């Protein structure tokens, strides 16, 4: 283990250290109420440290492709760093949300922040994993912490039920994924992604016919993480029952991890099987967009609606994956940059929505859509923020969501995947219907209870960050797009 290896793992080390410190503090002074006040602060400091480390690694990445580390288990390239940044930012926003929420709902929030940081650490590992074993281990690490966090309110029957459901479904999917990995090992006699590609490109492999079934098993695991149909059934229940800040985390964290491994596996290990997986992914994408958006219409609980909405967004991101073109220099409108920019827009828009949901839940104790009636009179700030986020999720220009949609639809037309573009366009209109429905309550319906809704400082900060970035991404997307394009370029094998 060289010094360079350790430096490459700096973000992970910082996260791990912070998590351990949090656990330690909790062990020593967990009974003291005042401690709970500054636990989130410690976690945020740790996350800020991780951001600094990531930016440092990014700016010092040599122009040549970086070398894999730890026995070719991990590859810390700009692609990994880009996604790590999203994961860390999402976790930081979730922690800002959690402070007030957890204090009022549980007596011992100590492990909560430590677990969140470990989940974040797991995502950062997933983004860099280049070996099936590493992928499996880090995904499991993310899953297990997510199960616990979902069922964190063990006295609340809904939270417990959500945790157990999530766990049972997750365990099944991860078994399927492990089976798929074992098939790949059988075919290529290695678990390393690069080596698998080499093993599969030779003429002597008589087991090539097994690649597609193996891939389907693998997709079960990845699809579970990104909540793509038909591996999505856990999402509505888990989203509804989990503590709301954790719902926010579930809507972005596992997606980042899932897309990281999906892209790495497909593009590094299986580029020669493009023709096989592109059909598979296109179909999943179309079904996901349709099912997610249609079922979201019928939800009465905002968290459940957001669950289906997040399923639908996975479908849009999959358009970008399905429109990857081999060896095509990522110019304007390449699928890969589309996925990255969409993820970024989704991070701000979706987490921002959850900020509003948490603020409202703290005030009213409810997540029913009816209880958003008259939000504009009760808190103009929350209503205005909600407007921005809903418009972004619906893909209306001026917001980040539009840039994401424009880019992936452009990618689809670029490679003449008209079916994907048309399905995406039609389902966007369906999606607008339920986002507008929420706005209808917030703006047009008179409230039953006129009392103003208090908004805490942490929530205001989170709202400002997500709201501003949503608008900036919509109105001045150039730096973000440039970054996404260069990152995507380097995943395709080119220097950053």
């Amino acid at each position, binding site marked *: 283990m060289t010094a360079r290896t350790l430096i490459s793992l700096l973000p992970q080390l910082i996260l791990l250290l912070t998590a351990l410190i949090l656990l330690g503090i909790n062990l020593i002074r967990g009974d003291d109420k005042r401690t709970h006040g500054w636990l989130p602060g410690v976690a945020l400091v740790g996350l800020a440290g991780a951001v600094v480390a990531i930016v440092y690694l990014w700016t010092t990445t040599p122009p040549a492709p970086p070398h894999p580390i730890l026995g070719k288990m991990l590859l810390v390239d700009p692609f990994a760093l880009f996604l790590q940044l999203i994961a860390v930012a999402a976790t930081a926003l979730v922690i800002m949300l959690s402070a007030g929420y957890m204090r009022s709902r549980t007596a011992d929030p100590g492990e909560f922040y430590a677990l969140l940081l470990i989940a974040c650490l797991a995502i950062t590992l997933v983004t860099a994993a280049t070996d099936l074993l590493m992928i499996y281990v880090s995904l499991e690490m993310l899953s297990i912490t997510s199960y616990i966090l979902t069922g964190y309110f063990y006295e609340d029957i809904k939270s417990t039920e959500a945790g157990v459901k999530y766990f049972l479904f997750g365990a099944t999917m991860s078994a399927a994924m492990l089976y798929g990995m074992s098939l790949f090992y059988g075919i290529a006699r290695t678990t390393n992604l690069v080596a698998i590609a080499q093993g599969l490109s030779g003429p002597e492999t008589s087991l090539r016919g097994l690649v597609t079934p193996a891939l389907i098993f693998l997709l079960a695991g990845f699809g579970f993480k990104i909540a793509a149909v038909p591996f999505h059934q856990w999402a509505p229940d888990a989203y509804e029952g989990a503590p709301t800040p954790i719902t926010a985390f579930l809507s972005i964290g596992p997606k980042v991890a899932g897309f990281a491994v999906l892209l790495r596996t497909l593009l590094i290990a299986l580029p020669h099987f493009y023709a096989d997986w592109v059909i598979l992914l296109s179909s999943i994408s179309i079904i996901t967009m349709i099912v997610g958006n249609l079922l979201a219409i019928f939800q009465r609980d905002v968290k459940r609606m957001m669950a289906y909405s997040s399923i639908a967004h996975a479908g849009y991101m999959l358009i970008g994956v399905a429109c990857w073109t081999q060896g095509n220099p990522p110019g304007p409108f390449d699928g890969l940059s589309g996925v990255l920019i969409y993820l970024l827009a989704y991070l701000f828009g979706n987490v921002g929505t959850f900020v509003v949901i948490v603020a409202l839940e703290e005030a009213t104790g409810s997540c029913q859509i009816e209880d958003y009636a008259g939000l504009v009179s009760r808190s103009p700030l929350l209503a205005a923020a909600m407007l921005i986020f809903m418009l972004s999720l619906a893909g*209306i*220009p001026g917001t980040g969501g539009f840039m994401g949609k424009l880019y992936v*639809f*452009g990618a689809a037309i670029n490679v003449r995947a008209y079916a994907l573009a048309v399905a995406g366009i039609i389902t966007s*209109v369906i999606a607008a219907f339920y986002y507008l429905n929420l706005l*209808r309550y917030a*703006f*047009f*319906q008179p409230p039953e209870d006129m009392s103003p809704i208090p908004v805490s400082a942490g929530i205001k900060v989170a709202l400002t960050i997500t709201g501003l970035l949503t608008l900036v991404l919509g109105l001045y997307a*150039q730096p973000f797009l440039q970054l996404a394009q260069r990152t995507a370029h380097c995943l395709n094998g080119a220097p950053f």
Partner: protein
Amino acid sequence: MGTNVLSIITFAPLLGALIILFIPREKEDWIRWWSIAISLVPLGLAFFVYGQVRSAPGQMWFQEAYEWVPAISVYYRLGVDGISAVMLLLTALLSTLSYFYSAFTIKERVKEYYFLFLLLETGMFGVFVSLDLILFYVFWEIGLVPMYLLIGVWGGERRIYAAIKFFLYTLVGSVALLLAILGVYFQTGTFSILEAAAAHPFADNFSLAALAFWGFFLGFAIKVPCFPFHTWLPDAHTEAPTAGSVILAGVLLKLGAYGFIRIVLPFFPQVFRFYAYNLPLIPILAVISMVYGALVCMAQWDLKRLIAYSSVSHMGYVMLGISAAAASLALERGHAALSTSAVMALNGATLQMFTHGIITGGLFFLVGIIYERAHTRDLRAFGGLASKVPYYYGITLVTGFASLGLPGLAGFWSEFFVFRGSFHIIPVFAAIGIVAVVLTAAYILWKVVQQMFLGEFQQSKWDAATHHAPLSDMTWWEKVTMWPLVIVMVLVGVFPSVIVALLNGATSALLLAVSSC
């Protein structure tokens, strides 16, 4: 006053809106007068642009081009020719009058109201000055959200239904538009409207060109709205607050027609020609809009709904004029009389956009004025108002006559040009369409003039319908709102060249470029 005059016009209302955010909510009068004041900036500049463009309306003036999102080759490109200059004038005038009228009628949530209205104004200006397809699309959609909220919050009884219907209908069109824009981009490699038009996308592949054509068509036809995509309009126009209806009918419908002229005709002349002449689907839809819209007006008893349907009918004239210009490409080239007719038809279409904006904007103000008093729009509740509110009667009479195309008023010239041009090119459709002119005269004279104003005023009927509402003639602010519109109607009616001169130069240049391909 450098070359950024278009940016200033476009973003002055946005700046005004942002400043409103910092004015305290209680200072409602500050907000009202600030909005009116800031709207004078684009109004003044629109007159300046009008004066400049007059000298050579066929070329693009005040062009601006900056990098915006070069990563996907999106640029900030602006420019105006005679057509857009006229549209800027219309938008600025109606916006200022709307703010002025609203200052006396809107009492609730004044801050949000003006904030949204100014945002909407930026979106409308943006569409008329954009020379980049993505920029065009962004402005196109930005107007959608404020209008949705304006209808939904300040609208009538069925406002929520109308607001959502308006938003979703327009969104369906917009997404089709977006696909078509992307299709054009991957064919021509540019989002620039001028460059893409010069490249004639898909000129070698009729089926792909037709696909892109119908994508644009859907987006614009819903906005115009052209039959059978018009069903959102009566709901939205009827439920919107008065100033919202004025802007909807006066400007937002023109965005769709403008798209046909600025994008569809120059991009796909051959496909447009095919569907305007060989397989005349578009003239058929135009004529149906004209006649059907007028027939529905005959059957309406809700005054506001009647005016709304008259917009469907009148925007059909615009579509007829545009299709005639497209159809002329199918006939013998270089035929001087024919190209004169094509230019005339397009002049008529664009002039109709302007005059309809002024006249129908005025009619919606007038509906609002009577509704403020009666709190009903049922025509059967009225009768004999002429003796009670003579001033209101006079103004309504002039506006109504302008709407039915009485010579000497603005509406006459646009209808005359449309029919004069189309009769030479697509005579059958022009002949059927002329029925609409007769029907318009019928419903304006019978439904509006006779039902509302003529006959004996019956106090008991009025009291029963309006719950003893007091009836007074127009107030000073209502007069101030209406007079500029009446003046424009008469001015354009007597000297049509003040507007036509600009339009003619631009349409001639446009048709010349189109027919040379």
